[in-house]
C-alpha cells in the first residue's frame, strides 16, 4: 500500500480536522466551565445569549476579534506576538498523536477510470511508534511559550508569573514522567494503540503461570486496576502541568494579576487559552488511554461488536465504519468525564501556597512515583 494523492490528501485534511476539533472544544469547555461553576456556586452563569447561554461563545469570539491590537512600549514585540502562536503548536502536536477510535477501513473502489485503495485511515492525527515519548517531549515545549510570553511582555508580573509557571511545570514533569514508567512496565510498549489493545477483554491477572479471571465478566481489563497509585500521581501531575487550580500559582490574581498573560488581550489571550485547554485535553486523553481502556467499551471487544453489527445487515465496510463511530463515542464519553473532573476540581479546591506546591511535587509525589515504579517492577519480576 503505497502513498498516493488520495491518501495524502485525506491525511492532511484529517490533521486539520484534529486541530479544529481541539479548537472548537475550547468554547464549549469555557461555556461548561462558566455554567458549571455557576451551578456549583448557586448562581445562573451566562444565560442571556441564545438558549442556555450557548451563543455566549459566539458573542465572546466577536468581542475578542474586535478588540484593539495592543502591545506595551516595553514589550519585545517579536516575542510578544510570537508567543501566542507558539502556544498552539505543542498542544496540537501532542493531541494529534492520541488514538480516538478504531482504524477506519476503506475498501478498494473505482474512480476516474482507475482503482484506488484499499486504505486504512486511523482516527488520530498520526500514528507514532514511540507515542508516549513524543507526547511528553512535545507537550513540555509549552514551558518555552510561557517564558517567551513572560519575558516578551516586559512586565515584572509577567516575568514572575512565567518563572513560577516554568518552575512548576518542570517540577511536575518529573512526577508525571516517573508515574508513566509503571505504565510502560505494565504494557511493555510506548505505542498508545498497542496499550489500548492490551486493555481489551475482561479483567484477568496472570500470576505464577496461572490466569485468574474475575468473576464478573463485564469488568474490563483496564490499567487502573493494575496501576491505581500511578493513575492518582499522573492525574494530579496533569493538573499542575496544565496550570489548573489547585496548582494555578502562575496566575494567582491576588499576587500576580494574571501571571504570564497580564499584558495580553483579545485574540492573543484567546490563543493562550486554547493552548491551556489543549493541555487539559491531552491529559484527559492520556488518562483515558493509559488507565481506562482508551476507546474500548467495557464488556465487549471490537471484534464481537463487529459481528453484532454485521448481524444487523450492514456490509463489511459499513459495519467497520459504524464500529469505528461507536468506539469514537465511547472514547469521547470517557474524555468528557475527565474534562468535567478538571472543572469540578477547579471550583472545589482552594489554591496551594508556592512552597507547598513545590514540596508536594518534589518531596511527596516524586518518592511515591519512585515507590510505584519499584513495586511494579518487583511484582512483575516475582510473578513471571
Amino acid at each position: 500500500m503505497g502513498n498516493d494523492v488520495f491518501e495524502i490528501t485525506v491525511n492532511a485534511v484529517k490533521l486539520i480536522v484534529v486541530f479544529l476539533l481541539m479548537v472548537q472544544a475550547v468554547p464549549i469547555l469555557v461555556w461548561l466551565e462558566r455554567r458549571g461553576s455557576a451551578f456549583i456556586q448557586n448562581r445562573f452563569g451566562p444565560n442571556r445569549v441564545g438558549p442556555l447561554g450557548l451563543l455566549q461563545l459566539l458573542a465572546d469570539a466577536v468581542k475578542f476579534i474586535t478588540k484593539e491590537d495592543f502591545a506595551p512600549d516595553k514589550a519585545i514585540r517579536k516575542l510578544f506576538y510570537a508567543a501566542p502562536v507558539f502556544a498552539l503548536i505543542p498542544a496540537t502536536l501532542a493531541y494529534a498523536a492520541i488514538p480516538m477510535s478504531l482504524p477506519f477501513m476503506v475498501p478498494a473502489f473505482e474512480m476516474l477510470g482507475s482503482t484506488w485503495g484499499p486504505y486504512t485511515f486511523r482516527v488520530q492525527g498520526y500514528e507514532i511508534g514511540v507515542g508516549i515519548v513524543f507526547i511528553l517531549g512535545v507537550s513540555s515545549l509549552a514551558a518555552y511559550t510561557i517564558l517567551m510570553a513572560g519575558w516578551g511582555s516586559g512586565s515584572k508580573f509577567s516575568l514572575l508569573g512565567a518563572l513560577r509557571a516554568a518552575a512548576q511545570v518542570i517540577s511536575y514533569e518529573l512526577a508525571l514522567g516517573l508515574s508513566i514508567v509503571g505504565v510502560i512496565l505494565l504494557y511493555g510498549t510506548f505505542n498508545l494503540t498497542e496499550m489500548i489493545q492490551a486493555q481489551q477483554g475482561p479483567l484477568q491477572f496472570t500470576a505464577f503461570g496461572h490466569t485468574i479471571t474475575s468473576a464478573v465478566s463485564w469488568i474490563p481489563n483496564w490499567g487502573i486496576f493494575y496501576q491505581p497509585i500511578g493513575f492518582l500521581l499522573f492525574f494530579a501531575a496533569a493538573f499542575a502541568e496544565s496550570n489548573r487550580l489547585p496548582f494555578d500559582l502562575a496566575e494567582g490574581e491576588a499576587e500576580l494579576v494574571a501571571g504570564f498573560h497580564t499584558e495580553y488581550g483579545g485574540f492573543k489571550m484567546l490563543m493562550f487559552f486554547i493552548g491551556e485547554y489543549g493541555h487539559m485535553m491531552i491529559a484527559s486523553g492520556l488518562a483515558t488511554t493509559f488507565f481506562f481502556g482508551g476507546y474500548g467499551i467495557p464488556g465487549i471487544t471490537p471484534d464481537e461488536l463487529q459481528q453484532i453489527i454485521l448481524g444487523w445487515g450492514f456490509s463489511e465496510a459499513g459495519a467497520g465504519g459504524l464500529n469505528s463511530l461507536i468506539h469514537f463515542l465511547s472514547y469521547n464519553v470517557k474524555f468528557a468525564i475527565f474534562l468535567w473532573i478538571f472543572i469540578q476540581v477547579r471550583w472545589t479546591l482552594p489554591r496551594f501556597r508556592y512552597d507547598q506546591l513545590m514540596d508536594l511535587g518534589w518531596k511527596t509525589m516524586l518518592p511515591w512515583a519512585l515507590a510505584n515504579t519499584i513495586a511494579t517492577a518487583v511484582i512483575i519480576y516475582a510473578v513471571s
Partner: protein
Amino acid sequence: MSEMPLGGIIFLTIFIAIFGTALIFLARAIGGQRKNNSAVKRDIYECGIPGQDKKESKVSVKFYLTAILFILFDIEIIFMYPWAISFRDFIANGMGTPIMISMGVFIAIFIYGLWWGVKSRALEWD
C-alpha cells in the same frame, strides 16, 4: 507500525503557524490599532505604580536551582524508559536478576540524589 510520520508533524506545525499568524493579523485588521496612545496606556500594567525597568527586578536563585535539579533528575527518569520497555524481554530470556540488580543500583543513586537535594535545602521555598 513504528514509523515516525515526520511529514504529518511538519505539515501540522506549519499549518498552525500560518493559522495563528493569520488570526493575529485578522484581529489587527478588524480591531484596528490606534496611533497616539497616551503614555499611561502604553506603559506596562504594574498596579498603577510607574513601571520599573526589567533590569531592576531581581529573580530568586531558587528558580535556577530547581532548573538544575530538574535536568539531573529528568535525565535519570528518561534512562528508566528503555529499561521499562525491555524489562519483560529480559525476564523472558532469563536475564531478570541482572537487570533488576543493575536498575536497583541506578534507583539507589537516584534516591541518594533526591535525599541529598532535600537535605541540602535546595528544595526549600520560603
